[in-house]
């Protein structure tokens, strides 16, 4: 039987939206069978692949503090390799804070502190350990933000930037890598004729895909998306979602989204967070058809507890 981590708040059943006790201690094995009249995105081969996917990052008892404020409370979960894991939850629940831990974005904010660990496998290095260089972490774990933020440079230079930082000197290699990244980001055909023009001349959706290409250029193992489509129209959104689906062939994806349907569409696993705690973590198909916790149910169905 597959061992998925599932936190089990003892009181959440009856207490409505507010889980009352410290919850992430209980780890119970759950069955991930495909029964049910309707499961979102049931594709048996994909499912099996998902269940067999090795763990890429193991989050263990992760706490995070902004000064005195404890923003993340003992999070424990496994991020599976080449799968898409979505983080959902109301504003202020800590999902973005959690996402940012993965590439040490908090290091720039004074007074922040990590406890516990995020182990990146297979090397088993703790991403949040002080002795680990955040620059190295960011090379391996890319991030795409809510608003597209291309550099005010040419399209080409935006993607080449990370390679140059990495010390790649060969022009031919840089050109190859840029083209590959742009192709992987499904942008190549639209920009190949004007690689020298400013990245700011692209549309919002194109800029976002450029940011994805920029993140892909350094061949990261993981990509973090922080509400990547909330500033985009439905067509650009659909393109990005397509892209995320394609990207899981090569990288592990962690995505924060406020759009519940998006989480349901693009992810294999979904984690529901509330008040800095992980309330439920399970296969996406299950979270959206038959979640285990009432708090999750209330949130995804738009109820108040």
């Amino acid at each position, binding site marked *: 039987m597959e061992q998925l981590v599932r936190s089990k708040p003892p009181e959440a059943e009856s207490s409505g939206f507010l889980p009352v006790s410290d919850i992430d201690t209980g780890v119970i094995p759950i069955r991930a069978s495909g029964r*049910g*009249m309707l499961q979102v995105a049931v594709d048996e081969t994909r499912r099996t692949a998902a269940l067999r996917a090795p763990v890429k990052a193991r989050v263990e008892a992760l706490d995070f503090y902004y000064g005195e404020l404890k923003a993340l409370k003992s999070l424990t979960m496994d991020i599976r390799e080449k799968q898409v894991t979505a983080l959902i939850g109301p504003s202020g629940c800590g999902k973005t804070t959690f996402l940012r831990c993965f590439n040490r974005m908090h290091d720039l904010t004074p007074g922040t502190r990590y406890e516990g660990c995020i182990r990146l496998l297979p090397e088993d290095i703790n991403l949040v350990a002080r002795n680990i260089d955040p620059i190295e972490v960011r090379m391996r774990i890319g991030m795409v933000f809510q608003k597209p933020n291309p550099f005010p440079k040419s399209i080409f230079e935006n993607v080449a930037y990370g390679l140059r930082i990495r010390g790649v000197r060969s022009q031919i290699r840089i050109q190859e890598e840029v083209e590959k990244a742009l192709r992987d980001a499904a942008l190549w055909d639209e920009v190949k004729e004007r690689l020298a023009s400013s990245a700011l001349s692209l549309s919002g959706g194109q800029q976002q895909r450029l940011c994805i290409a920029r993140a892909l250029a350094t061949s990261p193992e993981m990509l973090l998306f922080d509400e990547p489509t909330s500033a985009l129209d439905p067509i650009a959104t659909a393109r990005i979602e397509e892209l995320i689906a394609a990207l899981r062939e090569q990288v592990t994806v962690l995505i924060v989204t406020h759009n519940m349907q998006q989480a*349901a569409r693009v992810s294999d696993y979904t984690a529901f967070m509330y008040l800095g705690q992980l309330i439920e973590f399970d296969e996406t198909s299950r979270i*959206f*058809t038959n979640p285990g916790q009432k708090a999750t149910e209330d949130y995804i*169905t738009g*109820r*108040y507890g």
Partner: protein
Amino acid sequence: MSTEGLSHHISSRYNTDLERVRSSVLEMGGLVERQLTQAIGGITEPDARVMVRVAQEELRVNQLERSIDEDCSRILATRGPTASDLRLIITILKTITDLERIGDEGEKVAAIAARLALRERPNNRYREVRNLGEVVIDMVHDTLDAFARFDTKLALEVLRRDRTVDEEYEAIHRQNITFMMEDPRSIRRALDVMWVVRSLERIGDHAKNICEYLIYLVLGKDVRHTKIEEIEKELQAPRG
């Protein structure tokens, strides 16, 4: 989940939408149940007008089926329901198909009742039909009751009764074969009785289907095509 939870959405219009479609299903169920009661009543007490009345109800049943379908598609399109809301919509869409078919079977029974009313009645006054009819009417009634209250215990209880219906159907079947062999003049009536009990047996199956959908709705467990003993075990087990 409980019926109460339906009205706890942040969007009050969503509450109204779900509540409305649910009460339409109950209304449709009520009509179908009445059709069925009238049809079976028409067999045990001769009534040549039974067909007309049942057919009148049928119009309204069909109308409701269409409007519930429409409401459900609209909710799916505009609300993107998830979890228990999604299960509710799926359950309703499937339930009304079975309800509509119960209505159709009721109509068939009524047609035969109208025909039988013009003929000489047997000594037992179609007692076998009356007995089986009562069981089936109760099943439909309890199914709707279970649906109204999201009562899985009652649904399970209805599922258990389906076996009785099947056994009773088999017994009537055998009995009629005997009648027909003994006296060829009884063939016509025996065939009519067979058609009626066949319809009743089908109605039992539809009620059973609805109860299975209801268990899916409330507990998120798909218990179709599962032996009753396994369903009982399943319902006692913690969430799978």
